[in-house]
């Protein structure tokens, strides 16, 4: 990137020729921008504002002009487009090859992604081909004397770690969905330039053949529209016990939802699943019963207005995001709660 930053040249402790700036990978599908790319943009802009660097974006696909124009309205140095027939359908080989050439041409110091399923499918291969380190699934950052320190959750969100890159730039980093708010992305004073980047994919061998995407079953319930949700997790122990939670949901007039293990066991249908592989919801009330709060679940519900957690484990990560918590045996608490709700409703 044509960004000079003498300060970071001095700061480079490793003695390598300093790469410059931040390159943001924009994800699109069929010409539609993935919203989580804007969240990653907020992280990139935040880092840049503290290091005095600039952010450029790159977008890949067969025809990406509308996505490029949309993203060019943001505060960016430039948007680079890579358009090629071989990128019409996402494949790891095509994306690795194109992104690798982009990174080599633009020589950024840091490459930022959103931690989507697509990024998970190709970016580790890209990092390995570049021989660079990749800090995945970050939820935050801070800048320490020119170094970016990334915050990563480990043990499924039970602990946080501060991670420092100690290898030569560029480093790659991905941010977890929901770590930043897309509407906080800074707009530019005027649209930034859009430049076509020329890469050569003619020799790139695409080894995987993707078929058409599909949805398993027609979504019978749209949980995103439900104002009240009662969700059930592993703590419920058996299918027969789901009825306990259903009664509470009925008493409240809420929809019942579940974490992944419940749907994997087919105790509730797939369309009731909340989380990264299910639906993302933000109801007025999210009452989590026997749900520990693994990241994959939390990303699907953490923006709920009021979160209540009932769990026997006081250390369960769900309590970190709950407004109200009851620590105890759900088999005692849920029936008591159902009775109380029914009582209050009959009185009012």
């Amino acid at each position, binding site marked *: 990137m044509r960004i000079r930053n003498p300060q970071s040249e001095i700061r480079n402790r490793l003695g390598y020729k300093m790469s410059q700036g931040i390159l943001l990978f924009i994800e699109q599908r069929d010409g539609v921008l993935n919203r989580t790319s804007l969240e990653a943009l907020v992280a990139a802009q935040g880092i840049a504002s503290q290091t005095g660097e600039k952010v450029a974006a790159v977008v890949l696909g067969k025809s990406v002009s509308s996505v490029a124009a949309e993203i060019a309205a943001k505060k960016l140095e430039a948007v680079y487009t890579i358009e090629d027939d071989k990128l019409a359908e996402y494949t790891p080989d095509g994306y690795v090859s194109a992104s690798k050439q982009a990174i080599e041409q633009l020589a950024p110091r840091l490459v930022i992604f959103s931690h989507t399923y697509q990024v998970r499918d190709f970016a580790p291969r890209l990092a390995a081909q570049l021989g660079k380190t990749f800090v995945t699934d970050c939820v935050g950052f801070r800048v320490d004397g020119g170094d970016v320190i990334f915050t990563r959750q480990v043990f499924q969100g039970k602990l946080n770690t501060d991670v420092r890159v100690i290898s030569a730039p560029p480093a790659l980093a991905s941010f977890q969905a929901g770590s930043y708010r897309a509407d906080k992305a800074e707009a530019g004073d005027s649209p930034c330039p859009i430049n076509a980047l020329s890469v050569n994919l003619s020799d790139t061998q695409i080894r995987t053949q993707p078929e058409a995407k599909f949805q398993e079953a027609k979504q019978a319930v749209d949980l995103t529209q439900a104002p009240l949700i009662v969700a059930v997790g592993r703590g419920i122990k058996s299918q027969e016990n789901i009825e306990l939670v259903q009664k509470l949901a009925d008493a409240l007039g809420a929809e019942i939802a579940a974490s992944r293990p419940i749907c994997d066991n087919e105790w509730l249908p797939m369309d009731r699943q909340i989380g990264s592989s299910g639906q993302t919801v933000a109801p007025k009330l999210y009452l989590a019963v026997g749900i520990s709060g693994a990241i994959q679940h939390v990303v699907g519900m953490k923006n709920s207005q009021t979160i209540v957690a009932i769990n026997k484990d006081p250390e369960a990560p769900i309590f970190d995001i709950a407004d109200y918590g009851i620590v*105890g045996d759900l088999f005692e608490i849920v029936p008591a709660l159902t009775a109380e709700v029914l009582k209050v409703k009959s009185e009012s």
Partner: protein
Amino acid sequence: MNIVVCLKQVPKKDSILRIGGDQKWIDYRDISYEMSEADAYALEEALRQKEKHGGEVIVISLGPERVRQSIKEALAKGADRAIHLQDPLFDSATDADGIARAIAAALKDEKYDLIFTGLQSDDYGFAQVGLIIAERLGLPSATIVMEVQPEDAAVRVKRELESGWFQWVKMSMPALLTIQSGINQLRYATLKGIMAAKKKEIREVKAADLGLTAEDLKPGQVVDRAYLPEKTKRTEIIEGKPSEAAAKLVEKLRFEARVF
């Protein structure tokens, strides 16, 4: 069809985690271990494929002596043999790159059609080791796989995408697949399986056997500090007997949160 399964042993899900004295990771004292969940599903999928198509299931795991317990569990469930990468030098492989480099080196001379890993581990959760192994061994790959259908020299897999979308992807074998949790029903080891496992080979491999030095395994990223997450919200814990707690909660939901 021969399938390699990469297994990782991790602290049990319900472990109470304490920060270690150096503030860089957890204190491993009083921790008990289990196979990382997604890896257990990867193993199960490999065993089911073997039952359908024949061949051999080889498990490979990197870690200290305690890891043998998880390896033995895999052998008792029906894996045929195991490779255990055990060496103090491997302790310095603390990022995905170092771990993948060691595993890829150990698999260089193996004959396999598929390599399975879990989609990510329950401890570090890098979600990278599988793909770096694929890159190092020159294999095509697919991640977050829900179904595996071998077809002659190719494999067709169902990938999970986000928000309830899926996609079938086909590639030639050998290939590497990262397996999603919950794609099958896990089996338990039988007594017969446990007895049979005693005769199965667990080959120990040292870093020197792979020509790897500490320099080769040096991480590109390190943990500066490990800590309990700061609460983003102030959680009000409601105490009391179930009926009392229920009454208090309902009152708060009605008058503070005003949700009904």
